[in-house]
C-alpha cells in the first residue's frame, strides 16, 4: 500500500515547500512562489486524501493500523521516542481539516497578500506551519506531538509578527509565544508524569497500559496520577487553545494578516488542544476531577468570551472572541465525555470560522484596510459574494438548521444536559448560544447594512478577486453540508460521525441511551430550544441595529460601567500586567540582573582576575634583585624541605628520600 507505508510524505511536502520558498524565494516573482507553496500544500492534500482512501478500504483484520516507525529520535535507556506516524479515524478527521482548509487558505492568500512585501516569507512560514501541524496530528507518541505543538507555536509567533516593523505586531507575537510557553510548561510536566508512571510515551502502549482495569477510577477531589497528569496536559491545552486563563494572546494575535487568523487561530492551531484532550481521552475518563475541570473551564470560557464579543468594534476582534468562545464549547463537550461531539464541532467550526475570517479579510480588502465596524455599513449590495458567504457562515455559527453549526452545537448541549450535574452547564451553554447569535448578527448588520459610514469619495469599494472568492464559496458549501454527516441521528438514524470515530473514542459516559425513545424525544426538544434561542438572538440584533439604530448608543450610555468593563475585556490584560508581569520584571531587573549577573557572576570573574593581580603584586616582592633576600629564600626553601621530612613521613619519596 503506497501511501500508508510512506506517511511521512504528507508532512514532508510542506516542509520542502517552506524550505525552497524560504531559501530561494526572495528573488522569485510571486507566481513561482505561489506554485511552490500551493503545489506543496495541494500535493500534501492529495496524498492525505489517498491515505484516507486507503485507510478506509483496509480490511478489518488490519485495523487498528499500527504506527509507522520511521527513525529513532531519542533512545535513552528504556525510553524510546521515535518519529512515528499513525493514522486512525481521529487522525483522518484532523488530516482532512488541516490539509483541506489549509489548502483553501493558501489559495486565498495568493490574492490577499499579493501586494505585500515579504510575500515569499509569508508562504514559507505558512508551509512550515502546515508541516508542524501535520506532525502534530499524525504523531504516535507524546514527544513527537510536542514537537509539532512547539512548532506551531513558533510559526504562530512568526506569522503574528509578520509585519514585524509594527511594534504592536511584534509585541503580539511575543505575547502569543510566551503565554503558550506557560501552557507548554504544564504540558511537559504532564508528559514527565505519564512517562514516570507508564514508562512510555507511545500512544498505543500507553493507552493499552492505562486501560488496564487495575487502575481505578479517581473520584472528584481525589488527586491521583491520572488527575494530575490530565490537569497538566489540560494546562497546555488552555495555552494553545486560548481558554481561561491563558486566552489573552488570541485577540492580540489579530495583528497578523487575516489568512493567518483564519488558518491558525480558527481552524487548526487552536484546535490542537482539543485534539490532545480527545486523543488522551482514555486518561481523562479515569479522572472525574479532570473532566469536571475541563467542562467547567470550557463552559466558563465560552460564556466569558461571548460577553466580551458583544461590544467589540474591530471586526477581527469579534471573531477572535468568538473563536475563544467556540473552543470553550469543544472543551465542554470533551469534559462531559462527548469527545466525538467535540471533534465534530471542531470540524464544523473550522469550516465556518475560517470562512468568517476570510470573508472579513475580503471586507477589509474591499474598503481599503479599515477594520472598525463603526466605519462600515451598506456594503451588502457592493460586495455581493462576500456578503452572501459571510451570511451563510453566520447562520452556521448561530446554530440555525440545517447548517453545520446546528448539529454540532446541538450534540454538545445535549450531552451536557444528560450527565449528572450538567444542567447548569447546559444553561450557560444555551445562554452563550444566544449571545453568539446576537453578536454575530450584530457584526453582519453593522458591516453590511445601514447607511455607509465611511467616506464614499475616498474609499472605492471593490469585490475581491476570484483567488479570494473561490475558497469563500467552497467553505460556504462545506458550512452548509458539513453537518449532514451526523444529521440522521435527529430522526432516529445512526450518527455516522460518532460511529466513525467510535473505535478511537469510547462512547460518552452516560450517553448510552437507556431508553431510546425518551432520549430521542429529549434530543428533539433540546434542539428546538437551541434553535429558539438562536432565533431570539437574531431577533434582538435585528431590532437593535436595524429597527432602532440609536438604541445601542443609549443602552451603552445608561449602563456605562458594564459597557466599559466589557469593552476593556474585563481589564484582564491590565490585571496580568500588574500582578504577574510587573513583579517578574522587578525580579528580573533587581535580583537576576543587578544581583546575580552583575554582582555575583561578574563579580566572581572580575574578582578572580583581580585576585590574580593582587597575588602577583604580592609575590612580586620575592624578585627584588637583592642577593641577600635570595639567600634567605634559599634557606627558607631548605627549611621547608626539612620540615616536610620531619613532620610528614609519608611525603618523603616526594622530596627524594628513598628510605
Amino acid at each position, binding site marked *: 500500500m503506497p501511501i500508508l507505508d510512506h506517511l511521512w510524505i504528507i508532512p514532508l511536502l510542506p516542509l520542502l515547500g517552506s524550505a525552497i520558498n524560504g531559501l530561494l524565494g526572495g528573488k522569485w516573482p510571486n507566481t513561482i512562489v505561489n506554485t511552490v507553496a500551493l503545489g506543496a500544500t495541494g500535493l500534501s492534500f492529495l496524498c492525505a486524501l489517498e491515505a484516507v482512501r486507503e485507510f478506509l478500504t483496509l480490511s478489518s483484520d488490519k485495523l487498528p493500523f499500527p504506527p509507522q516507525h520511521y527513525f529513532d529520535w531519542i533512545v535513552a535507556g528504556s525510553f524510546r521516542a521515535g518519529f512515528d506516524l499513525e493514522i486512525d479515524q481521529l487522525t483522518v478527521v484532523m488530516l482532512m481539516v488541516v490539509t483541506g482548509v489549509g489548502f483553501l487558505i493558501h489559495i486565498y492568500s495568493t490574492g490577499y497578500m499579493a501586494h505585500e512585501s515579504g510575500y515569499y516569507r509569508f508562504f514559507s512560514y505558512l508551509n512550515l506551519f502546515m508541516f508542524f501541524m501535520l506532525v502534530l496530528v499524525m504523531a504516535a507518541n507524546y514527544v513527537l506531538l510536542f514537537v509539532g505543538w512547539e512548532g506551531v507555536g513558533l510559526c504562530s509567533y512568526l506569522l503574528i509578527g509578520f509585519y514585524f516593523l509594527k511594534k504592536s505586531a511584534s509585541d503580539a507575537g511575543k505575547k502569543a509565544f510566551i503565554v503558550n510557553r506557560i501552557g507548554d510548561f504544564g504540558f511537559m510536566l504532564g508528559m514527565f508524569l505519564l512517562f514516570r508512571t507508564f514508562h512510555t510515551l507511545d500512544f498505543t502502549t500507553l493507552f493499552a497500559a492505562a486501560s488496564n482495569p487495575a487502575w481505578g477510577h479517581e473520584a472528584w477531589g481525589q488527586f491521583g496520577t491520572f488527575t494530575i497528569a490530565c490537569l497538566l496536559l489540560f494546562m497546555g491545552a488552555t495555552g494553545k487553545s486560548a481558554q481561561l486563563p491563558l486566552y489573552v494572546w488570541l485577540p492580540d494575535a489579530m495583528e497578523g494578516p487575516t489568512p493567518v487568523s483564519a488558518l491558525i487561530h480558527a481552524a487548526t492551531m487552536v484546535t490542537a488542544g482539543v485534539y490532545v484532550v480527545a486523543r488522551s481521552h482514555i486518561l481523562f475518563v479515569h479522572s472525574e476531577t479532570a473532566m469536571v475541570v475541563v467542562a467547567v473551564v470550557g463552559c466558563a470560557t465560552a460564556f466569558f468570551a461571548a460577553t466580551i464579543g458583544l461590544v467589540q468594534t474591530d471586526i477581527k476582534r469579534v471573531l477572535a472572541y468568538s473563536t475563544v468562545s467556540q473552543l470553550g464549547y469543544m472543551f465542554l463537550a470533551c469534559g462531559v465525555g462527548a469527545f466525538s461531539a467535540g471533534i465534530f464541532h471542531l470540524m464544523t467550526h473550522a469550516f465556518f470560522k475560517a470562512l468568517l475570517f476570510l470573508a472579513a479579510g475580503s471586507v477589509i480588502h474591499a474598503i481599503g484596510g479599515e477594520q472598525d465596524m463603526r466605519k462600515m455599513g451598506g456594503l451588502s449590495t457592493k460586495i455581493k459574494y462576500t456578503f452572501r458567504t459571510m451570511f451563510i457562515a453566520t447562520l452556521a455559527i448561530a446554530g440555525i438548521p440545517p447548517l453545520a453549526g446546528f448539529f454540532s452545537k446541538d450534540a454538545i448541549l445535549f450531552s451536557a444536559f444528560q450527565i449528572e450535574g450538567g444542567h447548569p452547564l447546559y444553561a450557560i451553554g444555551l445562554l452563550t448560544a444566544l449571545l453568539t447569535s446576537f453578536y454575530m448578527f450584530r457584526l453582519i448588520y453593522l458591516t453590511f447594512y445601514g447607511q455607509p459610514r465611511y467616506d464614499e469619495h475616498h474609499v472605492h469599494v471593490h469585490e475581491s478577486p476570484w483567488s479570494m472568492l473561490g475558497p469563500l464559496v467552497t467553505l460556504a458549501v462545506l458550512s452548509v453540508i458539513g453537518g449532514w454527516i451526523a444529521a440522521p441521528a435527529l430522526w432516529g438514524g445512526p450518527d455516522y460521525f460518532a460511529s466513525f470515530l467510535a473505535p478511537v473514542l469510547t462512547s460518552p459516559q452516560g450517553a448510552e441511551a437507556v431508553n431510546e425513545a425518551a432520549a430521542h424525544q429529549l434530543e428533539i426538544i433540546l434542539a428546538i430550544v437551541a434553535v429558539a434561542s438562536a432565533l431570539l438572538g437574531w431577533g434582538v440584533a435585528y431590532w437593535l441595529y436595524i429597527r432602532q439604530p440609536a438604541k445601542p448608543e443609549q443602552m451603552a450610555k445608561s449602563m456605562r460601567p458594564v459597557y466599559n468593563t466589557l469593552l476593556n475585556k474585563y481589564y484582564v490584560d491590565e490585571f496580568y500586567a500588574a500582578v504577574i508581569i510587573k513583579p517578574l520584571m522587578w525580579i528580573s531587573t533587581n535580583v537576576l540582573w543587578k544581583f546575580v549577573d552583575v554582582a555575583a557572576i561578574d563579580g566572581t570573574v572580575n574578582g578572580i582576575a583581580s585576585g590574580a593581580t593582587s597575588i602577583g603584586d604580592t609575590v612580586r616582592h620575592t624578585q627584588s634583585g637583592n*642577593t*641577600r*633576600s635570595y639567600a*634567605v629564600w634559599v*634557606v627558607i626553601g631548605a*627549611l621547608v624541605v*626539612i*620540615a616536610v621530612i*620531619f613532620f610528614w613521613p609519608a611525603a618523603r619519596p616526594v622530596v627524594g628520600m628513598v628510605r
Partner: protein
Amino acid sequence: MTPQLAIFFVLAALAVLGALNLIIQRHPIHSALSLIVVMIALAGLYLLMGSEFVAAVQIIVYGGAIMVLFVFVIMLLNAGVEERTNVSKLAGVAGIPLAVALLGFLAAAIARSNESAQAGVEAGTLANTKEISTMLFKDFVYPFELTSFLILVAILGAIVLAQREKS
C-alpha cells in the same frame, strides 16, 4: 671522661669558636683564617674517628689549596672592611628565626634518632685507606672519572673568567 672524649671536646670547641669568629670578624681575611682553624679542628676530629685518609685529604686539599685560593683572592681584590649596608629587609627580619628553626629541626632529628653506636675505631685497626681505595676504584669508578672531568671544567672556567679584559 676518656681521653678521646676530652680531645673531642677540645677540638669541638675550637671548631665552634672558629666558626663564630668567622661571623663576628669584619675583615674577610680574618674570616678566612678562622675558617682555616675550623678545618684543622675538623681534620683532628677525623683523625680521632680513625679516618686518617680523609683527615689528610682535608688538610691538603681544603686547607692547603682551597683556603690558599681564598686568601689569594682576598689579597688580589684588596678586600677591605665590610661596609654596613642594609638594603635587604628580609634578611634582617627572617635571618635569626630561620637559623633557630633550622637548629631546632636538626636537634630534634638528632634527639629522635636511635643511633646507639659509637663512632670511632677500636684500637689496633687503623688501615681503612685500603677499603676506601678499593671502593673508590671498584664501585665508584664512574663518579671518580666524572669528577676528574669536573676538575678540568673548573680549571677552564676559572681561567676564562679571571682573564684580564682585552681592552
